[in-house]
């Protein structure tokens, strides 16, 4: 078990439109990587994306998953994105504890 190290996982769900801006924050606040999957969603701002064509792709949802070793960095990312975008733009964020191999990668 000495193999595994605690790390913090952050999940950000935002409109694709602001994906790159959010990813920039993620990298600036010290994350070494991220994984992005596309999807559709629903929330306070209504339905996002659909199977039908014709919706500006910028409105579909991206799920950004970031793992950082340093809890403080995780909170910085979370709070920066939230304060900068979540007043005007749709989106949510949550954090979770996970176990990783090779702590140096995170």
């Amino acid at each position, binding site marked *: 078990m000495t193999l595994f190290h605690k790390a913090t996982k952050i999940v950000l769900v935002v409109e694709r439109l602001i994906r790159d801006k959010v990813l920039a924050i993620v990298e600036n606040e010290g994350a070494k990587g991220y994984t992005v999957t596309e999807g559709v969603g629903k929330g306070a701002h209504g339905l996002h994306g659909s199977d039908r064509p014709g919706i500006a792709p910028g409105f579909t949802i991206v799920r950004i998953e970031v793992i950082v070793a340093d809890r403080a960095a995780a909170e910085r990312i979370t709070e920066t994105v939230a304060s900068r975008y979540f007043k*005007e*733009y749709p989106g949510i964020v949550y954090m979770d504890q996970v176990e990783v191999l090779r702590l140096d990668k995170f």
Partner: protein
Amino acid sequence: MDVLLDFAATFLSQLQKPTLAFLIGGVIIAALGSNLTIPDSIYRFIVFMLLITIGLEAGMEIRQADLVSMLLPALFAVILGIGAVVIGAFVLTRLPKLKADDGYATAGLFGAVSASTLAAAMVVLDEEGIPFEAWAPALYPFMDLPALLAAIILAGIARQRRDGGDGAKADIKAIIIDSLRGSAISALLLGMALGLFTQPGGVVESFYDPLFRGLLSILMLILGMEAWARLSELAKVAHWYATYAVISPLVHGLAAFGLGYVAHVLTGFSPGGVVLLAVMAGSSSDISGPPTLRAGIPGANPSAYIGASTSVGTPVAVAIGIPLFVALAQLVFDL
């Protein structure tokens, strides 16, 4: 009276034509709950094909055209784009229980131009044998961009008034560049550049042209399905939008027809060109507009403006606007 009769005639004959027929067909099967969907990648490719073809033909023609004759129509296009937004914003932001940002964004979409409506009008003019300058469709960006800009700037100023803070001023340049970079506009401009500076005649004749009508018929089908699918969203927002979405296309179109007529008298702008100018003004942006406005007026609710444009604006522009302006042209220019 005559107009109405002519219009009725043209309208009925249009109903039979693929363009309108596929649009209505799309609305109907969507209303019947069909699961038919055209893949999104196909939709995006069709839009690209239509716009680059329009651009290619415009570009090839502009070579011969004397640019002077383009100036006045282009100027009118700008005026119409901005004018429609200013008036629309004035009205919508004063109506009861409408969010200001939603009003600006909606006015912006209806001031802007729908590439698909434009393409539909081009096909109808061909079928009716009404000629137009191949560069006329290239007036698109001259109306589209200023309209979107005007909406974003007005919204920015209003926001500043409300909660102070640093305004949108700074980003105007960014917004212009952004909208020029939009996939729709850049496909059109790319086509124009290729048509203007290179010899694409062969491939246009053998590939782009022959596919134009067919792809348009599929696009109309998609727009019809979309129109119905988004009605529900629209229903959720204030009914004023629906009202505005029915009236403004015709008002904008008729105003444009008037200015087009002036250009016809002054610089010999062709009857077909006048119709296209009217159709552009009467159309509401369905492709390039929404993302630009989403970025420029984040406070606005996309369901409101996209719904109004896609569910009501475009169908009205295609089904009523085009036949109306064609009938009007046949009357005015007695064709």
